[in-house]
């Protein structure tokens, strides 16, 4: 995965004495001190992060955390006070007006919280706006805009006006307008925050569907952690203009960096985020090609277990054997354990969220086997490890 955007020391100071405030900030003075001495507010404080190609990167934070300022610096709707933004290695902060316009037209498109549709333009004209200002002729820009509207699932509204559409539909137009330019990067500023919960979830799904075949780099601002965890490949948490933690959703849930993040994730429904691979533990596996009944029985005794998972030399999952059956084999004097392997063991893919198999596992007499798409055994899931994960503890023996 290659880096798309690289942000170094990006800083925004609002106020008259930004220059002096910048010096003070460099000297390591606190925000409160700078506000008192210069009357300037530090909006974003030396932000450093990278965004990878084709990922959904969510910037999370409460209002006033600087996230909206940060995203607006990426297309310079707000001029950064300090620092650099490298887009494909090119520093955006150095661009002159004309070069900046070119970048905005071709590479970065933005979707706004309150949709920001032009009320005097039809849906089609709104969607075609970005192409219109690039001088694309009417027919081809309307064709493209129409395609873009179809892509977001809006059919037959081309000649309506924005106020004739519901909020969810309006934001689809906002998304279509951004996509019509075919940008490499989508900047989405609280794009779904103004929608009601049902609409919001639908739009999140829609965005994930779109992303599955469009492969854009999406920077998404949100104050809703559940939304961030749902759509984000990676999440960056901000507070008071500072970056608190950056990581994959599960990393943040499992290893919150400090109390602030802990408080933040307190109410999250972990079962929807944590996946099988996070809660599986190392299985006691025996090798069907190497181990005979006696050695299997010995292993079981020494591990104090009554059953064992069976794999072959390539770690392909074969099934489960229990001690009683192994004993019978030994009594009969047979060496091949194939006849006693139980194959009806429930298996699960490592990326499945816990929530999806919580019901089955609660009634299953045996642990679930976690196997990848090549049927290799990665681990097993026992109920107690799920409980540990949901309660926010590190899973013991995690693979």
């Amino acid at each position: 995965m290659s880096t798309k955007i690289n942000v170094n020391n990006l800083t925004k100071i609002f106020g008259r004495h930004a220059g002096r405030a910048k010096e003070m900030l460099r000297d390591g003075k606190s925000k409160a001190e700078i506000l008192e001495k210069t009357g300037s507010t530090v909006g974003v404080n030396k932000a450093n992060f990278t965004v990878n190609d084709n990922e959904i990167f969510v910037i999370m934070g409460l209002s006033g955390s600087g996230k909206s300022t940060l995203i607006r610096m990426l297309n310079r709707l707000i001029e950064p006070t300090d620092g650099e933004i490298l887009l494909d290695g090119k520093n955006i902060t150095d661009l002159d007006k004309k070069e900046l316009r070119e970048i905005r037209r071709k590479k970065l498109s933005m979707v706004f919280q309150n949709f920001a549709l032009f009320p005097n333009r039809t849906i089609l004209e709104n969607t075609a706006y970005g192409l219109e200002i690039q001088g694309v002729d009417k027919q081809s820009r309307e064709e493209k805009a129409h395609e873009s509207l179809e892509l977001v699932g809006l059919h037959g509204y081309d000649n309506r006006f924005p106020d004739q559409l519901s909020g969810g539909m309006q934001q689809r137009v906002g998304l279509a307008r951004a996509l019509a330019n075919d940008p490499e990067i989508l900047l989405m500023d609280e794009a779904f925050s103004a929608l009601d919960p049902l609409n919001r979830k639908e739009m999140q799904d829609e965005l994930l569907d779109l992303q599955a075949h469009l492969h854009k780099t999406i920077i998404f601002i949100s104050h809703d952690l559940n939304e961030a965890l749902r759509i984000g490949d990676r999440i960056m948490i901000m507070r008071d203009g500072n970056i608190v933690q950056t990581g994959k959703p599960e990393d943040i849930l499992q290893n919150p960096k400090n109390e602030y993040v802990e408080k933040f994730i307190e109410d999250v429904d972990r079962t929807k985020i944590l996946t099988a691979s996070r809660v599986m533990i190392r299985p006691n596996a025996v090798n069907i090609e190497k181990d005979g009944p006696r050695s299997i029985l010995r292993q079981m005794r020494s591990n104090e277990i009554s059953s064992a998972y069976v794999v072959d030399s390539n770690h392909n999952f074969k099934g489960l054997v229990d001690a009683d059956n192994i004993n019978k084999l030994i009594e009969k004097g047979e060496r091949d354990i194939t006849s006693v392997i139980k194959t009806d063991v429930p298996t699960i893919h490592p990326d499945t969220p816990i929530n999806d198999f919580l019901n089955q596992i609660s009634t299953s007499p045996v642990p679930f086997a976690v196997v990848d798409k090549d049927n290799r055994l990665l681990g097993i899931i026992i109920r107690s490890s799920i409980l540990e994960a949901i309660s926010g503890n590190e899973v013991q023996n995690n693979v």
Partner: protein
Amino acid sequence: MFNLMTMNMPTIPLAKWINAFVNWLTQFNGFFNAITNFIGAIVNAFQWFFDLLPVWLFIVLVLGLTYWALRKSKHWGLMAFELIGMLLIYNQGYWRDMTQTLTLVLTSSLIIVVIGIPLGIWMAKSHTVNLILKPILDFMQTMPAFVYLIPAVALFGIGMVPGVIASVIFALPPVVRMTNLGIKQVPEDLIEASDSFGSTDWQKLIKVQLPLAKTTLMSGVNQGMMLTLSMVVIASMIGAMGLGSQVYFAVGRNDAGSGFAAGISIVILAIILDRITQAFNKSKRDNIK
């Protein structure tokens, strides 16, 4: 006490200074002559056109314009009023006066639109310009309109042209103000959206700001036009002919009857102009609804 104080203080020669300034300005008579000729040409063109039209054709054109401007919502009542009103003006023998007044109003309106809208845009874009223009606009609007007549005569002579100049000074501020207001009222996120797609400043102005400011801007133009109408009687004092001068003469003759007859004609003209400009202010969006 106060009397004592003022008696001992020398009077500041404000009037003298202003006279000196106006005198100083007259040395640029080449410049002012050029303006006079330019505005005179516009006035003559309008007047030539109105003189060319037979009365019936003029009435038909006004009715047609109203019909077209209000095509989505038929206003038969207004059209009936216009017909009766114009016939009344004709009947009273004020037809040519009416066209002269219309010429004065249209010329002034044209000039305030051409000057006022760019000024308003400039004001909205630049904080400095805003700071400088605001007190000037206040001055222009609150200074009694009579006062403008004096330098107008000194610089532009008598007749229609100084009348137009005085009307423009008096009627310009609302156009500038409303344009400024209309552009500033465009929601910030729409400006951001326009910027974020890489619009040039010009594209942003033409495609987003002006269309969205249109309603406010047009009501400024409408107000400006009404203000120029209110100037016609005053302008008649320096030789601008028309319905205003009929009122002015009636005052001199102490003839309430013809004063009101001409005044009513002004009212009729004002209502017609007001309704038609307002009709143009309806966006295509309103027409669809």
